[in-house]
């Protein structure tokens, strides 16, 4: 049994099933990658696990440690240890970095701000009192969001395209954070197309048309995705024979 389980989850948006009877388990302390073409339902899946308002009308069940969290709000899920790093982090006019980080921190100590900022490669003396607004680059905001998640010490982290819009240095800091999560036993579920990022995952899931159609090692799934899926605009749902050929 995984730490986080989704059972027969279906979500319709605008009359279309974005998640379509999806069932999947995620394992405690492991790094999982969700792979699939645009529109496959990856970000929707992350939002549904987080319980974002647009996705609350799902059917099926989401279990954390065997207990249903389907009826819980975003903050109730967060208080149970689930959190989300957005592909494009929000900007907060006037809100200082240290206040943002401490908002969800386990240890609301100034030392926490310093520690997590240093961990994501940002100088606390330069960044702690800056605002989380448009004066920061996308990469800086991404690192600050990651710092806030490190401070939260979550059990499950959903990361939507952690590598998008950032430079090589920032990417290295994200890998440091992944190492921290792994060391703490945090479960990571990330959406990515980056080969560099995929190297840090232990398990991969291939999503297509709102379903997990395959799972296995990153090499297997990414190989299948690259060879069979990338040009098909997710019309190419593999046959049973094809699936049997790549499934472990």
């Amino acid at each position, binding site marked *: 049994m995984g730490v986080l389980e989704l059972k027969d989850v279906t979500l319709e948006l605008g009359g279309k099933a974005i998640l379509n009877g999806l069932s999947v388990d995620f394992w405690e302390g492991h790094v999982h990658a969700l792979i699939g073409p645009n529109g496959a339902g990856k970000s929707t899946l992350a939002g549904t696990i*987080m319980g*974002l*308002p647009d996705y609350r009308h799902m059917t099926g069940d989401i279990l954390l440690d065997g207990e249903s969290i389907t009826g819980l*709000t*975003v*903050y109730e*899920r*967060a*208080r149970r240890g*689930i*959190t*989300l790093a*957005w592909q494009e*982090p*929000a*900007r*907060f*006019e*006037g*809100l*200082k970095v240290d*206040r943002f980080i401490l*908002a*969800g921190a386990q240890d609301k100590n100034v030392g926490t701000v310093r520690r997590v900022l240093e961990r994501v490669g940002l100088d606390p003396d330069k960044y702690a009192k800056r*605002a*989380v607004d448009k004066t920061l680059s996308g990469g800086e905001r991404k690192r600050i*969001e990651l710092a*806030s*998640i490190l401070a*939260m010490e979550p059990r499950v982290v959903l990361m939507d395209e952690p590598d998008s819009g950032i430079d090589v240095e920032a990417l290295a800091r994200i890998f440091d954070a992944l190492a921290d999560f792994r060391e703490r036993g945090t479960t990571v579920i990330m959406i990515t197309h980056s080969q560099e990022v995929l190297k840090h995952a232990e398990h991969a899931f291939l999503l297509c048309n709102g379903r997990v159609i395959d799972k296995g090692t990153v090499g297997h799934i990414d190989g299948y995705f690259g060879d069979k899926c990338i040009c098909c605009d997710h019309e190419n749902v593999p046959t049973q024979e094809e699936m049997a050929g790549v499934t472990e």
Partner: protein
Amino acid sequence: MSGPTAQQVETARELLASLGDFGGHIKGDDIAHLEVHGNEVVGSHLVPGLTVDVDQLDEGIEAWIHLAKGARLRNPVHLCFGMLPTEGLQRIIMHVDAEEDSFASIQAHCTFPNAIDITHKMDADVRIAPGATYEYFERHLHGAEGGVIVVPKTRVDLGEGARFKTEFELIKGMAGVIDFDYEVQCAADSILDMIARIIGRGHDRIRINEVGHLNGQSARAVLQSHLALRDHATAEVYNTLTASAPWARGHVDCKEIVQGNAVAKAVPIVEVNHPLAHITHEAAIGSVDSKQLQTLMSRGLDEDAATDLIVEGLLA
């Protein structure tokens, strides 16, 4: 000004105590301050380069504040205007004359902690001579019941290369009724920076009228109004910026967060009368940004706590 009586000292102490953390400013010979309770000066201290003359009126004071040429005050000057009773009128007429190349930063604390029916009127004319910098930060502390009508009206004449920075802040207690009216004339190379930060609650009524005229070459201005409204509060914000000289530059920014049954209206007016001048404006009115809210809720804050933090940032 003669020394205060024992009663005046006690009144000044009570007035400053109502400011909480902000009340501890009367420390040190090098810090200028003036405390006015109703129509009575209950405490004061001046520093070289600064003179203040006060006339007592029936329901307030008339003050002449003068900064000598080249005087640069190292520490902020603290003004405290207020009334401890529940009812009354306080009228402040202020004439400010900042001579050439002078500098002063004024912290004005307006406190009405027990107000039920108080009117605080401020009529100011400010002359800031070429090369001078005058900063005026007005912070209001009202009680939980509102009951205050605040009517600040200020006219400013900004000389060549002069700077005027002003902030009006009311984020503690109920606003009551605010009718804020500032108008600034800006000569060449001058800089105007004006911001109002207000939280409206209950049945507060807020009207802001900020006007800047960029009359001189390369004059610059930023007018900002940031408001958070909840319950049945209403706000009307009029930001007007005109530019009539080459390379004049300006920006108008109005942001309002509206919750509950509150109502907000923003009217940015920009007028450019010279082809080499440039003014921009932005206005955003609406509920709390959902992505900001969801981000903070995904860190474990409930909706109210997340909203408070977002508003805190907006009004920072």
